[in-house]
């Protein structure tokens, strides 16, 4: 189901052609990060800390280096000491997370790496690296890290954003604060006030493809990296920083990517592979196994969040107070800033305080995960809003409509919203048959909403017209969600030629202009705008060539349906293939480049409806019906838009019901496999119904907003609200696993 504000009559945009990468993926031809083989290539293995927090006393690589087949062994001392070089703190953290120098800060932290002729030799050599540790006390949660006298990860960390600045270091990296109005007055005007505290656990993005990198270093200092990432230009920049070289010495080729969801915006293996290759003089491949992915790459934050909200009897929210602490893992940089800005952004609330803390602890450094920071905050706020609606006897959609942000609303994070489609997503849910479908025994229904900014940033594109009139669209944005199709569809619309006549490719860092990372739901918006700009340059060129052919002024030529037409019809039309075939006579090859820093980002909203059935005997929750409504602005490729919407929901359901990092008392992760870390599979789920809402972003040529992230914001609250409706128990701790449901039911019966 799609709700379209207007029908612009596009020929290709909004259609559902066969996905361009499908054939290679289903036949096994697609080259993912681990697939590349080079002549003489060595296999690498990383040595990781078994301790959550320890000082590195010594590393002895002698035995490993002497083993058969071993060609290189590296440690932190093989990389520049960025701290000693006065580098920016954030770059130092990137480098120290890639390979530890003085301390290890989490179980799985890299301390060394080896390269050998075979995998078995590399694994044996990794085990032979002798590391002596002085074990230090650790902290695993925000509660432990913020406690008085807690062991410190970084002895010099002074909390930012506090006035006056603290004199003593702590594990709190920074504080954020947003406030408006008068909180006391707001709660004084409320007829009902609800206050609750919530916790969420770290969860992983769960991409199917583990991280992989191949590096081939030359003796002249240059190196070529092939890797699976969400941004090979970013991998180049980070790797250059860690290696202490100019980015221009590194060429990075993007492999096909088996999922990222934010987690592949970070470097782990790339600089290690380059250094090993330099030491060995041969190409080196490094591939993580699933255990390493869990123990050493960034999940998203575990959190503790307190929410107090008040409403008047007519459903107007009079005040909101939110306190939140987000785990950053080993280095500062949790998404608490975004959490603070998104927590109540769906609503127009006159009085509020949102306070947040970025807290380091002895777990892997967190990485981005779809709408980073927003889902946890939404779980808390949307749960409390659901309670308030129940307390005043109001429909859960109606209470959201009564407070919904609209164009002109002063967002809780500052600026006024431009045209947005939140109300339309609420109405789409309310108008859908699922909203009034009958519920069975032990079943319940929940509603929740979410907001995400989306992003713009920098993109480049090149469009080539081939000699037969087909086109190649070249970008530098790794395709993690269907961007090759959306680029081709927009190019087809602009050029007026069939989608099948266009091939979209992702080029390496030396072949196309700079592109920021594929993240922030930005590629269809920003890289798409670059493609549109390049196509429009092509069309101008084609008009000029047709004018030259006809010996008329260019303003006598129009480009219509893929062909040049004289305005008075006095000339037979010239198709793109006609012009391409004779391009040598009219100026040479037909090609255009466009680069931009995208403007006009369109905010995304999603409202979701979940029906669950809770088994009171086992505590198992089954999702029986699910509907997601999301404002896409314009769905360039509806198949992929629905895929993004469904994917976000499914990941959110896993986050809600099963997923969590479990550590033992020594800070060692106990469930680093998909056997024990339970993500949803197809047989766990019903069809996720989608309602694409299209409220076009006026700043984009096709109205695109960005769709990849906001879909994961509402599910935990939607599921929790449905469980509450089913069994009258408010679950405040994630995951809402069978054990916790049974505990809650037992408490209720007591």
């Amino acid at each position, binding site marked *: 189901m799609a709700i379209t504000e207007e029908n612009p009559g596009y020929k290709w945009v909004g259609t559902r052609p066969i996905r361009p990468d499908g054939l290679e993926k289903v036949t096994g031809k697609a080259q993912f990060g681990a697939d590349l083989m080079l002549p003489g290539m060595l296999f690498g293995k990383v040595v990781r800390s078994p301790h959550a927090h320890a000082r590195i006393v010594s590393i002895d690589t002698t035995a490993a280096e002497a083993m058969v087949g071993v060609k290189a062994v590296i440690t932190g001392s093989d990389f520049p000491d960025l701290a000693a070089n006065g580098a920016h703190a954030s770059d130092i953290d990137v480098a120290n997370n890639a390979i530890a120098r003085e301390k290890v800060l989490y179980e799985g932290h890299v301390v060394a790496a080896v390269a050998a002729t075979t995998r078995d030799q590399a694994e044996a050599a990794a085990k032979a690296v002798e590391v002596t540790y002085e074990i230090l006390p650790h902290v695993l949660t925000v509660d432990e890290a913020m406690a008085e006298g807690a062991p410190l990860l970084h002895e010099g960390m002074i909390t930012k*954003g506090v*006035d006056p600045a603290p004199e003593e270091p702590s594990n709190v990296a920074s*504080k*954020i*604060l*947003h*406030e408006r109005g008068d909180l006391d007055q707001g709660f004084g005007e409320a007829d009902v006030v609800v206050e609750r505290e919530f916790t969420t656990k770290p969860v992983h*993005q769960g991409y199917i493809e583990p991280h992989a990198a191949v590096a081939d270093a030359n003796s002249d200092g240059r190196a070529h990296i092939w890797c699976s990432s969400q941004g090979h230009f970013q991998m180049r920049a980070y790797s250059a920083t860690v290696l202490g070289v100019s980015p221009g010495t590194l060429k990075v080729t993007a492999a096909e990517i088996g999922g990222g*969801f*934010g*987690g592949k*915006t970070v470097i782990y293996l790339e600089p290690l592979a380059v250094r090993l290759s330099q030491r060995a003089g041969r190409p080196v491949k490094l591939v993580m196994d699933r255990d390493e992915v869990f123990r050493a790459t960034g999940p998203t934050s575990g959190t503790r969040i307190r929410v107090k909200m008040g409403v008047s009897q007519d459903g107007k929210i009079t005040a909101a107070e939110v306190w939140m602490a987000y785990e950053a893992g080993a280095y500062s940089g949790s*998404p608490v*800033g*975004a959490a*603070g*800005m998104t927590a109540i952004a769906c609503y127009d609330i006159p009085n509020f*305080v949102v306070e947040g803390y970025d807290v380091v602890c002895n777990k892997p450094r967190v990485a*981005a*995960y*779809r*709408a*980073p*920071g927003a889902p946890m905050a939404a779980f808390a706020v949307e749960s409390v809003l659901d309670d308030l609606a129940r307390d005043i006897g109001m429909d859960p959609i109606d209470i959201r409509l009564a407070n919904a942000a609209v164009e002109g609303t002063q967002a809780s*994070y*500052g*600026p*006024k*919203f*431009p045209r947005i489609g939140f109300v339309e997503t609420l109405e789409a849910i309310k108008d859908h048959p699922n909203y009034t479908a009958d519920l069975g025994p032990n079943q319940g229904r929940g509603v929740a909403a979410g907001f995400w*900014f*989306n*992003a*713009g*940033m920098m993109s480049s594109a090149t469009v080539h017209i081939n000699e037969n009139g087909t086109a190649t669209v070249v970008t530098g944005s790794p395709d993690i969600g269907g961007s090759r199709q959306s680029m081709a569809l927009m190019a087809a619309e602009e050029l007026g030629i069939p989608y099948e006549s266009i091939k979209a490719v992702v080029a390496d860092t030396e072949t196309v202009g700079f592109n920021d990372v594929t*993240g*922030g*739901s*930005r590629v269809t918006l920003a890289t798409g705008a670059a493609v549109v700009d390049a196509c429009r340059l092509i069309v101008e060129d084609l008009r000029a060539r047709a004018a030259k052919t006809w010996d008329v002024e260019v303003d006598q030529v129009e480009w219509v349906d893929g062909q040049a037409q004289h305005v008075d019809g006095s000339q037979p039309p010239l198709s793109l293939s006609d012009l391409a075939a004779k391009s040598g006579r009219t100026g040479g090859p037909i090609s255009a480049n466009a680069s931009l*820093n995208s*403007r*006009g*980002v369109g905010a995304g909203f999603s409202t979701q409806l979940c029906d669950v059935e809770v088994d009171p005997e086992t505590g198992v929750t089954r999702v029986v019906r699910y509907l997601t409504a999301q404002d896409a602005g314009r769905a360039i490729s509806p198949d992929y838009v629905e895929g993004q919407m469904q994917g976000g929901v499914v990941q959110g359901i896993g986050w809600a019901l099963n997923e969590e990092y479990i550590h033992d008392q020594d800070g060692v992760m106990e469930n680093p496999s998909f056997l024990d870390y339970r993500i949803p599979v197809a047989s766990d789920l019903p069809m996720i119904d989608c309602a694409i809402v299209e409220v076009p972003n006026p*700043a984009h040529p096709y109205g695109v907003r960005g769709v*990849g*992230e906001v879909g994961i914001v509402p599910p935990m609250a939607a599921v929790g609200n449905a469980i509450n409706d089913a069994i009258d128990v408010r679950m405040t701790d994630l995951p809402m696993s069978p054990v916790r449901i049974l505990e809650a039911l037992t408490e209720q019966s007591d």
Partner: protein
Amino acid sequence: MAQVHFSAGLRDLTGGLAQVEIEATTVRRLVAALEEKFPGIGERLSDASSVAINGEIFTDAEYEPVDSDSEVHFLDIFQGG
């Protein structure tokens, strides 16, 4: 003059002011004027990754124009996934 709004986290540098009016033609000049008025705020603002001008969020706004009708907000750092 442009209306410049400060989040609560910046108000320790503005003497508690939530909003000021600044005469400037670009964001860069606006930040320079703010630094003169509130010493130390320039560095903090440079740490903010985004600026919203009349509701539109920019990631690199240094040379973006502002005018007497502009409403400017400096936003906390956030990263997309």
